[in-house]
């Protein structure tokens, strides 16, 4: 079976691909070059998702399945226009290519951010909840649009079995998203007086979930969460970081300053996620796919540790079995 994976220079794509590398033939695409120390188990190509290069990839290979993990995260590194081009236009192009090239199975990785952090959020959010994110956070609109595009495609094009996963905060040794960077940095801001519940999923568990979705093609939208909930302050403590409570009145400006001084982007919407809990229920995914997270949240946070980039990433291809 031949599989195309987008976001191939990311940690999750590498974990999934190396776990299934002898069984499947992998082709990786990413707008970012693959980190030099790492090895992608298969053909790797640098390409934007909305460029003509992607057509050529589909002309060259006949894919059975596509794993779309290449959503560009919200950060100051990329402009909103670029993110819209990649995440919305690029995804639409990829979906169209899947349809015209007879791809049988498609897995799309969205995010739980699409639900938005809101004081009226229910205790646990199921898949049919409204996506409030774009209403309060324009910077998340591309994520919501991408999720919508994927959902429309799932209903409209039945011959491609499409599974959409909305994972909670992904953490792990190799992951380099905002929440991981904050927890690793040793100092993590939080909103004074608020200590919301959070969920975390370990990179290995997410890789396992993706493999399940890839191997048992069942169309649908599924939340994917880790072991359970934990308060933000507890999570920060377990990650051996120091929580710095910031008064709500000055948070926005202070966080902007912190983001400028440090190299870690702190998108403003994250503050709301640090104020109101956004807990998702993955009961449906567990029931449908028999998924069971194996890594305990506390362990995962403990092992986050300060990143020693080279050692950790170069080890990825050999010792990480999912």
């Amino acid at each position, binding site marked *: 079976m031949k599989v195309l994976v987008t976001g191939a220079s990311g940690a999750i794509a590498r974990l999934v691909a190396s776990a299934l590398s002898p069984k499947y033939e992998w082709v990786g695409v990413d707008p970012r070059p693959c980190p030099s120390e790492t090895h992608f188990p298969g053909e790797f190509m640098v390409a934007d998702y909305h460029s003509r290069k992607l057509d050529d990839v589909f002309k060259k290979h006949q894919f059975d399945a596509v794993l779309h993990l290449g959503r560009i995260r919200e950060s100051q590194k990329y402009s909103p226009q670029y993110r819209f081009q990649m995440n919305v236009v690029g995804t639409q192009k990829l979906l169209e290519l899947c349809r015209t090239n007879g791809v049988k199975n498609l897995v799309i990785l969205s995010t739980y951010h699409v639900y938005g952090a809101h004081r009226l959020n229910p205790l646990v959010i199921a898949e049919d909840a409204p996506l409030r994110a774009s209403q309060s956070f324009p910077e998340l609109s591309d994520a919501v649009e991408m999720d919508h595009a994927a959902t429309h495609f799932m209903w409209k094009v039945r011959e491609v079995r499409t599974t959409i996963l909305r994972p909670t905060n992904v953490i792990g040794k190799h992951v380099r998203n905002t929440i991981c960077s904050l927890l690793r940095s040793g100092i993590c801001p939080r909103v004074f*007086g608020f200590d919301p519940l959070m969920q975390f999923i370990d990179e290995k568990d997410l890789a396992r979930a993706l493999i399940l979705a890839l191997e048992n093609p069942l169309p649908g939208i599924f939340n994917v969460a880790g072991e359970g909930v934990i308060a933000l302050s*507890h999570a920060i403590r377990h990650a051996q970081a*120091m929580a710095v409570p910031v008064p709500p009145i000055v948070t926005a400006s202070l966080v902007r300053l912190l983001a400028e001084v440090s190299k870690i982007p702190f998108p403003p919407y994250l503050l709301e996620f640090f104020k109101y809990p956004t807990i998702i229920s993955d009961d449906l995914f567990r029931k449908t796919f028999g998924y069971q997270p194996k890594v305990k949240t506390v362990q995962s946070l403990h092992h986050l540790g300060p990143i020693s980039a080279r050692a950790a990433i170069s080890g990825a291809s050999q010792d990480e079995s999912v």
Partner: protein
Amino acid sequence: MLSLFSGTGYPVAIKMVLKRALMETDLEQLKDLVKKWEHFEWIEVPGLEDRLSRLKVELNSAGFDRWGLHPETLRKFAPMLYLLYHKYFRVETSGVSGIPEGRVLFIGNHGGQIPLDAMMAGLALFMDGEPPRIARAMVERWVPTVPFISTLFTRIGAMVGDPMNCRELLEHDQSVLVFPEGVRGSGKLFKDRYQLQRFGTGFMRLALETKTPIVPVAIIGTEETYPSVYNFEVLAKILGAPYFPITPFFPLLGPLGLIPLPSKVTVRFGEPMYFEGNGKEEEEKIREKVQRVKDALQGEINSGLKIRGEHIFTGAAK
């Protein structure tokens, strides 16, 4: 490479100052002392460990349950709550043994400006219930926006009173505590005490849908803790609060006026009520069933008041 204050020059200086201030200062002893007093740790709560261990909760590796209940927080606050429950309000309970196993919907009377009633009913179930259980109190929608309170409430099992939340909890066989009067009840004036205000009907639909027995809970005493004589609506609107009570002591005496009056509290659990239906009936039929619950609760309140008589602060003469 990814440390928060990487680079050279003043970011390094900031980092050093922060670290000095927050980590290297030796305040451990002082901290311990403050902690000891903060939560009244010198008070022994009889049977606390036993009760905590017999709670039917599923905890994850971080010590939280599915909805954010954190028994460790409960343990921390237990001495303080015990003082309030046993020494200050001298709570007495009746009818605890008649509560059915499994999912239960407790319907209580609301009053007294702050949710002391929910706290006392919840503590009655934890301290005197057999087996001890955590009642998930349904709180007002604005609570999540209140700093500290929102966090504490989540840790000890209170949730926003949304039908979705209530359904989720009942489907998982939890005990839920609902005040169908809502703010109409908690904000009521002293002259209206123990007169049930209009009941919402949502709780009945949920009970029918999830086949949950209803237990009326009469909480006597908490409605006298803050004798509100006037609701300052204009100020409430400005503050974004649902009501702003004026009592003989608040705001006249400032923070002192915030101390609740030490009335004697009785928590009376009524007979469990079972209703037939699927929760999709017309409003008329639901209202009829709600009225039956309301009558049962009012009856329970009235007999409680009768036993207490005029002795608000000392309780019934025995």
